[in-house]
């Protein structure tokens, strides 16, 4: 692939990302499935980069999943989002940083809609006022949390304890980056690098010593697709999409996958188990699957956080082979112990997928 061409595109698709003072909007899936990721993000921004991030307890779901599944009407979701903006305004922030790609897409879409149809914004203000008595200002800057990490990738690189390199061979790790569909496919200008050659995650990977893999199905959806997964009858298509991606990336022998969308991380991780159970097929090396990390986890590992502290035991695909390659020490016995040192129990072993 021609790097010059991609660089041209990356230059064309740059966006403004606030430097500090973030209002943090949590993600339903992230905090449920990868709570350590969220903690790591807040800790890195607060403690490693010295930024102010406000994690508001009053903040709720954006109802994006319901919206995309035709359960939540557009007026409702606009009002819910308006409430988020009101909370941000009340807290004295102007920079909205949602952790979820769906939310990021929803915010982008709604802001754009209001721009095109001011009467809808007026109506939403009216709904919000009637429902909660709140008023809001629209965010001055809207960025996904991965944008924020991307912005500070070089600062993180300066503090890094481990590189995305195989310490035994010095080979840069081969990383598959998967971008959530709603990050840039709806509004290419709102994503770093646009929709076709997004650079938000690959930028981090290269900054931290790894190499990004551009494989044929890179742009393809992970298969979540809301109705595809949520309706049982469609679930076969959902998993078939993930399978297609795995088959396409397999020849590149990726060391791990990172995603910036919580749902994708969950799917690419857990569908590997599902596919192995259904068809006896595993991807990656030696039957252990391809580890899937969120970009927060990747940043945390680079910065030297303890793997179990950031919740890597929550992953279906074992991360130990990756940790070994990067030379990150870990205590195997501590994997399933809680903060108090008590045993949390061990998950059942899959039939085909090997686990540590």
């Amino acid at each position, binding site marked *: 692939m021609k790097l010059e061409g991609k660089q041209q595109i990356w230059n064309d698709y740059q966006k403004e990302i606030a430097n500090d003072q973030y209002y943090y909007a949590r993600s339903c899936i992230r905090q449920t499935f990868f709570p350590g990721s969220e903690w790591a993000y807040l800790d890195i921004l607060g403690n490693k980069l010295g930024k102010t991030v406000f994690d508001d307890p009053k903040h709720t779901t954006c109802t994006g999943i319901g919206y995309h599944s035709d359960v939540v009407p557009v007026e409702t979701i606009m009002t819910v989002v308006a409430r988020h903006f009101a909370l941000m305004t009340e807290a004295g922030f102007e920079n909205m940083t949602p952790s979820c790609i769906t939310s990021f897409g929803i915010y982008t879409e709604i802001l754009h809609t209001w721009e095109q149809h001011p009467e809808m914004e007026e109506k939403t203000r009216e709904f919000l006022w009637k429902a909660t008595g709140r008023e809001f200002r629209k965010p001055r800057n809207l960025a996904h949390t991965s944008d924020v990490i991307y912005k500070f990738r070089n600062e993180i690189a300066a503090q890094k304890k481990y590189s995305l390199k195989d310490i035994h061979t010095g080979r840069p790790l081969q990383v598959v980056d998967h971008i959530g569909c709603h990050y840039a496919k709806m509004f290419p200008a709102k994503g770093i690098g646009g929709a076709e050659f997004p650079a938000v995650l690959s930028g981090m990977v290269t900054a931290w010593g790894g190499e990004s893999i551009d494989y044929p199905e890179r742009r393809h959806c992970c298969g979540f697709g809301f109705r595809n997964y949520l309706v049982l009858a469609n679930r*076969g298509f959902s998993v078939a999409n993930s*399978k297609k991606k795995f088959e396409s990336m397999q020849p590149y022998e990726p060391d791990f996958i990172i995603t910036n969308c919580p749902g994708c991380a969950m799917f690419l991780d857990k569908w590997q188990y599902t*596919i192995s159970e*259904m068809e006896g097929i595993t991807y990656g090396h030696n039957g252990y699957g391809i580890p899937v990390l969120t970009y927060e986890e990747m940043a945390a590992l680079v910065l030297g956080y303890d793997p179990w502290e950031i919740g890597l035991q929550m992953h279906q695909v074992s991360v130990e082979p990756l940790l070994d390659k990067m030379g990150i020490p870990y205590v195997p016995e501590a994997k399933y112990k809680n903060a108090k040192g008590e045993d949390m129990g061990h998950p059942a072993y899959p039939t085909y997928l090997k686990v540590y």
Partner: protein
Amino acid sequence: MMNFWGFSIAEARVIDYDKNDKSLAEMLAEEMPTTRLCIGCGGCSATCTAGNLTEFNIRKLQMLLKRGETKDLRDQLHKCMLCGKCLLVCPRGVDTRKMILFLFRQLSEQDHNS
């Protein structure tokens, strides 16, 4: 494929041109060069006696074959009655009836070998 938890992995619908086995189509083209001439006008399938009563669609079947998709061929081909009407309407002079016979023979040979 096993049906887990109420669903199974959907088969890809895509024509995987790289993976598909197109040897039968190549053999057909070699044996009967006129089959290369099809422009997909549908005259054959419109006049087809079997095609008006069943899923059998000779235009589609030969096109699928050319892309290496032979499943439908196996499921449908035998519905043809070899009446030869398709031959009379083809504007490109494709020897449709001979093509079908050739395919019959190939399938029968494959069955025989397996």
